C-alpha cells in the first residue's frame, strides 16, 4: 500500500510524460506524412528555446499578457461592480437584467467585426474583446452569488445594528466570493483563448499574431509552441484564482 502512496504525487505527471513520449515516437516514425507537418516534441522544444533566446516569444507573450491583464481586470472589476448593484438592489436588477440578457448570449468574438469599425485595428481592439469576454460572465456570477446569500444572514446583521453598506461589505460580498471566484476562474482561461483569436485579426504582435505568421510560413513547430504557451497560461490563470479563492474562503467553507 505504501508503495502506491509514494507513487501518488507522480501520477499527475505520468500520463503527460507518456503522451510526450508517444508524440515523439509517432512523429519520428513519420506516421503522419510530412515531418514538419507534425514535428516531434523535441523539435518543438528546440524551437521554444530559439524563440525565447531571440526574444521573439517573450516580446509577443508580453504583448498578449498586457492585453489580457488590462482587459480582464477592467472587465472583471466592471462586472463585479455592476453585478453587485444588480444583486443588491432588486430595482436595478429588474431594470438592467433584460438589457444584459440581450447582450450576454453574443460570443465575445462575435463583437469583432463591429469593434474593428468602432475601435479600429489597434491595441484597444483585443483589450475591448477581453473586456466583453470577462464582463458578462463575472457580472452574472456576482449577481448570482449575492442573491444566493441566505437572507437570514442579512437579517441577523440588521438586528446587530449594521447599516446596509456594512452588511454588503462585511456579510454579503464575502459570502458571494465563491460564486465570484468561479466566474473569475472560468473567464481567466477564456480571456487567453479569446485574445489569441482577436490577435489573429491584423494585430501585428502577440501570440495570436505569431501563430498567424507561423501559419503563413508553414512553421508548425512555432504554432505548437504558441499553443503550448496558450495552454500553460490558461492553466496558470485558472490555478491562480483557485489559489486565491482557497486562501480567502477555505477556512470557512
Amino acid at each position: 500500500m505504501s508503495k502506491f502512496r509514494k507513487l501518488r504525487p507522480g501520477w499527475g505527471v505520468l500520463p503527460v510524460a507518456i503522451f510526450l513520449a508517444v508524440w515523439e515516437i509517432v512523429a519520428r516514425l513519420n506516421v503522419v506524412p510530412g515531418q514538419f507537418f507534425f514535428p516531434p516534441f523535441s523539435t518543438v522544444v528546440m524551437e521554444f528555446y530559439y524563440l525565447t533566446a531571440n526574444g521573439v516569444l517573450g516580446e509577443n507573450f508580453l504583448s498578449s499578457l498586457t492585453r489580457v491583464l488590462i482587459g480582464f481586470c477592467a472587465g472583471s472589476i466592471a462586472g463585479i461592480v455592476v453585478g453587485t448593484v444588480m444583486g443588491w438592489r432588486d430595482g436595478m436588477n429588474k431594470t438592467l437584467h433584460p438589457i444584459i440578457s440581450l447582450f450576454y448570449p453574443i460570443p465575445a468574438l462575435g463583437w469583432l467585426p463591429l469593434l474593428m469599425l468602432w475601435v479600429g485595428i489597434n491595441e484597444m481592439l483585443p483589450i475591448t474583446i477581453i473586456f466583453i469576454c470577462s464582463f458578462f460572465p463575472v457580472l452574472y456570477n456576482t449577481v448570482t452569488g449575492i442573491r444566493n446569500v441566505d437572507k437570514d444572514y442579512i437579517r441577523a446583521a440588521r438586528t446587530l445594528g449594521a447599516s446596509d453598506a456594512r452588511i454588503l461589505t462585511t456579510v454579503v460580498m464575502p459570502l458571494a466570493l465563491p460564486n465570484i471566484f468561479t466566474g473569475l476562474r472560468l473567464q481567466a482561461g477564456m480571456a487567453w483563448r479569446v485574445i489569441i483569436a482577436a490577435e489573429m485579426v491584423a494585430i501585428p504582435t502577440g501570440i495570436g499574431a505569431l501563430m498567424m505568421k507561423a501559419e503563413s510560413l508553414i512553421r508548425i513547430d512555432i504554432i505548437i509552441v504558441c499553443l503550448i504557451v496558450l495552454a500553460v497560461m490558461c492553466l496558470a490563470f485558472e490555478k491562480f484564482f483557485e489559489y486565491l479563492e482557497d486562501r480567502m474562503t477555505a477556512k470557512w467553507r
Partner: protein
Amino acid sequence: MPSITLKNISKYVCQDLNLEVLDKELLVLLGPNGAGKTTLINIVAGLTDYRGSVFFDDVPVDKLPANKRGVGYLFQDLALFPHLNVAANIAYGLMSQEQPRERVDARVNELLQMMKIKHLSTRYPKDLSGGEKQRVALARALALSPKVLLLDEPLSSLDVQTAKYLRTELRQVQRKLGITTVYVTHDLQEAEEMADRIAVLQNGHVEQTSRPEQVFFYPQNEKVRDFIGAPNILDCDYCRSLGKGVMEVGCGGLPIIVPHDGNSVQKIAFFPHDIYISETKPPGPEVNRFKGTIINITSAHDAVRISLKVGSTCLLAEMPHHMFGDTNLAVGKEVFLILKLRRIRVCENKDL
C-alpha cells in the same frame, strides 16, 4: 427592560392581532406551523413591514429600522456568519456600532466566559457542534445588551438531550439578565419548561395567553385544547397523601394514584395516548386500573380515538392504527384500562 405591546398588527396570516409581553417576562409563542409566530417576532424586530403598531414601553418603534430597535434575535437556523470565527461573530454587532477595540474585546471575552465557549473563540461555525453553535448565536445576540430578545425555535434542530440542557441554560441566562424575551416554538413541553406565560397562536389569532398550567388545565377553547393534545382533564373531589411521593385523588368516583407530594390537587390531566387498553385483565399491581366500556370509536389520520365510560367518567384514549388492528375492540365491549402513573399531570390549588 421594556414591555412589548403589539396593537392591531396585520401581516400575512395575522389580522388585527393584539399581544402584550410584560417587562422581563419570557413569553412563549406556541402554535402549529403557519400560525404566524415567526411573522410576529419579525415584526417586533422590524425585519418586515406591517400594519399596526409596536410599542416598547409604550414608545412606538414603528419608524425605527431593524438596526435601531435594540433587539437581539436568535434565528431558527442561527445564521452564524460562516466566514467569521466565533469571536468575530460575537463581535459583529459591537464592531457595527464602531465601539473601541478594547471594549469589543472585553465584551466578547465576557460573553465567551458566560457561555462557556472561550475554547472555541478561533473556530469557524462549520467546525462547531449544534449545541456550540447555539451558545455562540446566543452570545452574539446578547453582545449589544439588547432590551428585547427574540428566539425563533432555536433548539428545534438539536437532539433531545442537548436541547433540554440548553433550554435550562437559556432560561438561566434570561432570568439572570432579566431581558424581556419572546420565544417561538411548536412544542408544548418546551413551552411549559421555558415560559412565564404562553400565547397560543392559531391562524394568526391569539387564542389564549396564560401561564403554562392554565393553558394546559384551562384551555379557553377547542382550538387550544386540540393543539395541546386534547388531554383528559378531571376535577378532583379529594386527595390524600400516600407518602413516597404519591397521592391518591378521587375523580368522578375513580381513585387515581398520582405522582405528587405537596399541596392539595385540584385537577389532574393525562393524554389519551397515556391510557393503556386491554381486552383481558392485565397482570401487575392494582394501581390505576379500571374497567370501562367502549362507547365510541373514531378513526383519525394519526390514531384511533376510543371514547370510554369508566364509572360516571368519560375518558378519551388513543391507539395507533396498527395496534388497533390486532384487537377485537368494538363499541359496547368491556375493557381494562391502565393510567400510566408517571404521565399524569397535577394541578395544585396554588397554581391557579
